[in-house]
């Protein structure tokens, strides 16, 4: 894997304007950015390691921790909330015995997210980048089982 981080970096000019795009791309390619990789990013852009972390830690689409295999996101925007997305969230919490937002479980994580602009088809649920719409308290089990 570490072969390609150099390759990804070379796609970018080593200028500040490319820092966030590079971080995003590396995070997407490997699931997260390890400390070793972050050092390579810092070296490449000639910024202190702390600066690379400072920027990276701000953005949802850049992960600096290893992510569980199963990342479930449920929209709680007002449209989805009106269509009972909180009931879906509670259902998932009970199913895995986890709490939304917690990071204690190494295998699965449930995140509450904001509107993805698909408000007419809510509740919207995203599992490892696959989007499900019109999810209900009762349909959610069937979907989750496909991922286990």
């Amino acid at each position, binding site marked *: 894997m570490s072969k390609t981080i150099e390759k990804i970096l070379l796609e970018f000019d080593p200028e500040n304007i490319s820092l*966030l795009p590079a971080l995003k791309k590396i995070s997407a390619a490997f699931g997260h950015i390890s400390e070793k990789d972050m050092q390579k990013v810092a070296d490449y852009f000639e910024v202190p390691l702390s600066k690379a972390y400072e*920027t990276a830690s*701000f*953005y949802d689409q850049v992960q600096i921790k290893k992510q569980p295999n199963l990342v479930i996101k449920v929209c*709680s925007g007002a449209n989805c909330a009106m269509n009972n997305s909180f009931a879906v969230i509670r259902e998932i919490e009970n199913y895995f015995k986890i709490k939304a937002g917690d990071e204690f479980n190494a295998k699965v994580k449930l995140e509450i997210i904001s509107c993805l*602009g698909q408000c007419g088809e809510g509740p919207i649920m995203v599992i490892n980048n696959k989007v499900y719409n019109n999810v209900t308290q009762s349909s959610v089990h069937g979907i989750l089982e496909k991922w286990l």
Partner: protein
Amino acid sequence: MNKNIKIITKYWDVADLKKIKNYESFGGYKALHKFIKDKNSDKFADEIKNSSLLGRGGAGFPTGDKLEAVAGSGEKERYFICNLDESEPGTYKDRAIVDNDPHKLIEGIIILSLIIGARKAFIYINGNYGKQEEILENALEEAYKKKYWGEKILKSDYNLEIGIFSGAGAYICGEETALINSIEGSRGEPKMRPPYPTEKGLFGKPTLVNNAETISNISWIVIYGGEEYAKIGSKNSPGTKLFVLGGAVKKPGVYELPLGVTIRELIFEIGGGLAKGKEFWFAQIGGSSGRLIMEKELDAKLEFGNKDFSIGSGAILVVDKTTNIYDLLLSWTGFFRRESCGKCVPCREGTFRLWEIAKRLQDGEISEADKKAVKDILWTLENTTFCPFGKFAAAAFRDAVEKLKILK
């Protein structure tokens, strides 16, 4: 008022405007040809000023004034940024522009950039808009081949480079100074203003930031003139506006209407009223940051400069009486807690505590101390935060307390 006038959406359903040929067949890029032929940027800056076009990104600032500030700057290097970060919950109007008519946006970007003398323009797009990024890339490529941007635009001496910058999932990056920080490779936190971006923006250079919808009005103004534009809509708020209807309404979606239309007309005439069997409770104007409007206030006009509420992003959520208000409170407060950038304490702490209280409300465990705390937190958010995000975070909660009496 002629409700049928369309500036932005006119040909959306007529043809696939993503193809440059189709866009051109409906008069597309004529405005750019006109601009290049005249080579008189002052004249077109005046047209935009005369149109009284107000920014559609939420604040309603006169586009002509901002443009003038950058165009008249003593600095040679200038930038133009199209704000396509759109992340207000319930809002997808800018995305609809890209999906339906990307060239209208690009044409506006080119003209505005040339007017202010920028040689580089950026489109800052919401990091979740992957498909729209692709549409824009293709459209830019087609436009480039036609010499609409790049070196020597339409054989003139004008040069312009256009680049797409994709965000990374932070609502606050829609705020223009945070957006600029983000392009510069920093945390997307708002900067102190003044200096305003028009003075010291991207890389410290004068920068014009405009919302994608604002920009989509430009080609029309160049062709028909500012005076014609100013006749549309309401007196202090000319033009049309894209509204996104959602919630318990029969026909949700994006609608273009002249500013000055009433909330009632929008919900009950255009949106077909409430879905079957549902009864109107209130409407929220402008996404999660928006105020709550009760039945007796529905005749208020949707326009900029309104004292009682801001039209914000143009999203309108229709809420019916069966809705669980605690779910909505949790939706709003959860959003602001997650998206607070953390730079200032009143917002970081205030949004967190409001969210905790919303959870206790949901669980029926609200205490007298909580009720008192709500008052303090709302006041603090409204009056002491570094950027307008704090006010946004307080708006709906305050109305829920005062108009819906959730704490009684």
